[in-house]
């Protein structure tokens, strides 16, 4: 197992220069994600109109994996419906944990593929939580609305 399978260039790049980093001033939904193992804390903000995610940003400090995962996640989620977001999460979760991947609508395949650089974590079980943390936060935000729930990955 080569470390570079985990820390691919695209991960290092998104880890150093996260996209959509920052706060949304008036999110319709937001939630905090907390990984007590390493102390990482992120917040995801969403603007949802109807059933569509119009904007999504995140902030907080984290390791390269969780930062890159947050960054890539915001890129693919922007403009998606909530149903699509759920599909993408299930597919991503299956890929990084080695579970059975649920069938994915063809339209989403390209987006799912963009998350593939993160699947290197599968070989590092303790790091899987780093990759899934922002996704869990989005799930929590969509459930709770603008209340600001905290999810923990441990």
């Amino acid at each position, binding site marked *: 197992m080569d*470390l570079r399978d985990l820390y691919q260039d695209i991960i290092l790049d998104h880890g150093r220069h996260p996209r959509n980093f920052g706060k949304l001033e008036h999110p319709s939904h937001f939630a905090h994600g907390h990984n007590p193992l*390493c102390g990482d804390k992120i917040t995801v903000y969403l603007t949802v109109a109807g059933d569509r995610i119009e904007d999504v940003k995140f902030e907080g400090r984290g*390791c*390269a994996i969780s930062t890159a995962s947050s960054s890539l996640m915001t890129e693919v989620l922007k403009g998606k419906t909530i149903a699509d977001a759920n599909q993408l999460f299930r597919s991503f979760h299956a890929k990084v944990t080695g579970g059975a991947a649920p069938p994915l609508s063809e339209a989403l395949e390209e987006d799912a593929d963009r998350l593939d650089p993160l699947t290197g974590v599968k070989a590092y079980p303790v790091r899987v939580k780093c990759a899934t943390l922002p996704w869990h936060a989005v799930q929590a935000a969509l459930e709770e609305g603008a209340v600001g729930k905290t999810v923990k990955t441990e």
Partner: protein
Amino acid sequence: MTGNGRLDAREVRRDFPIFENNPGLVFLDSGASAQKPRQVIDAVAEFYRRDYANIHRGVYRLSARSTELYEAARETVRRFLNAPDAREIVFVRNATEAINLVAAAWGATFLRSGDEILITELEHHANIVPWQMLRDRLGCRLVVAPIDETGGLDLAALEARIGPRTRLIAVTHLANAIGTLVPVESIARLARKAGAKLLVDGSQAAPRLPVDVQAIGCDFYVFTGHKTYGPTGAGVLWARRELLESMPPYQTGGDMILEVTFEKTTFQEPPARFEAGTPDIAAVVGLARALEYIESLGRSAVLAHEEALTGYGVDRLSSMPGVRLVGAGQRRLAILSFEVEGIHPHDLATVLDRNGVAVRAGHHCAQPLMEKLGLAATTRASLGVYNDESDIDALGAAIRDAQRMFG
């Protein structure tokens, strides 16, 4: 032991099968838990193979032998701590349970609303949370003595926080997160002057320093066997006999009772009063063997070894660009907590692991201290008797590897 009073770690390493079975392993996480020498592993296995039976209540020889080994372990621990009396040694699961026991049996009995418990910013969660629970239950105050800007305990500030209501001071002997050695003897003098009891959390100190509870002058001393090269499942509470005698039981059930009727139960004397149910007999037998193992290396040799290696590690890490060592005051021992610029501790630990170097990354169960230091997490290397300079060098090389990758 080598000529200069230090250990020959290469020799010592041969006692620890983990290294044979994990070639290339550089184990720098003894602060979380130490590896076990074959002397301990074999003692536990042989105990089960030859002498095992439940203790205390059996008339037959196997049970008598098992009981003897268990009670002999009490004497070994007594000697290890230089406690006055083996009956002052209570076997528990770990340091956490020892502190919970003191909080429940001594604290809840003798503390009153408004009384103060004084701890320090250096403490492990195990020496914080039980006192918080007690505070919330009794209406006590939890007072916290700060560290100074170098990471040492500020003794003057601690003294200033002792007041007429201070009933207990609970301090670590050696801070697990950053390696600060605490002057517990001085604190004992302050405690005595104030009429307060002193509990010392020796979890990190017991495997490294010659400990003498009478010389320290404390009232409670706790440590956890798995960090002293012993099995998991055996920890130690030492307390002055009169304190133990004044304390009601903690857990209740078999073995700790004198007489039970449905109306009323009377309890045994200490230490039996505090060991309800079937204890972790094998772990206790193994713990005794582990303490003998440390004694066989020589306790001052162990200390000299870890002191020298700590110095080497401080020098090595300090000289690396981008590496910042977290301060530990005037005297640091065996624990090196550090940050590497631009690399999250979690990523660093993963890269180190792939280089065979096992370290910890995180808050080290000392979140309030990390908060004070303004850190979410650090990377921590901690030493054991099997480590030597080559391990520090491997750590340095692996950090450079990570720096190349993330640079």
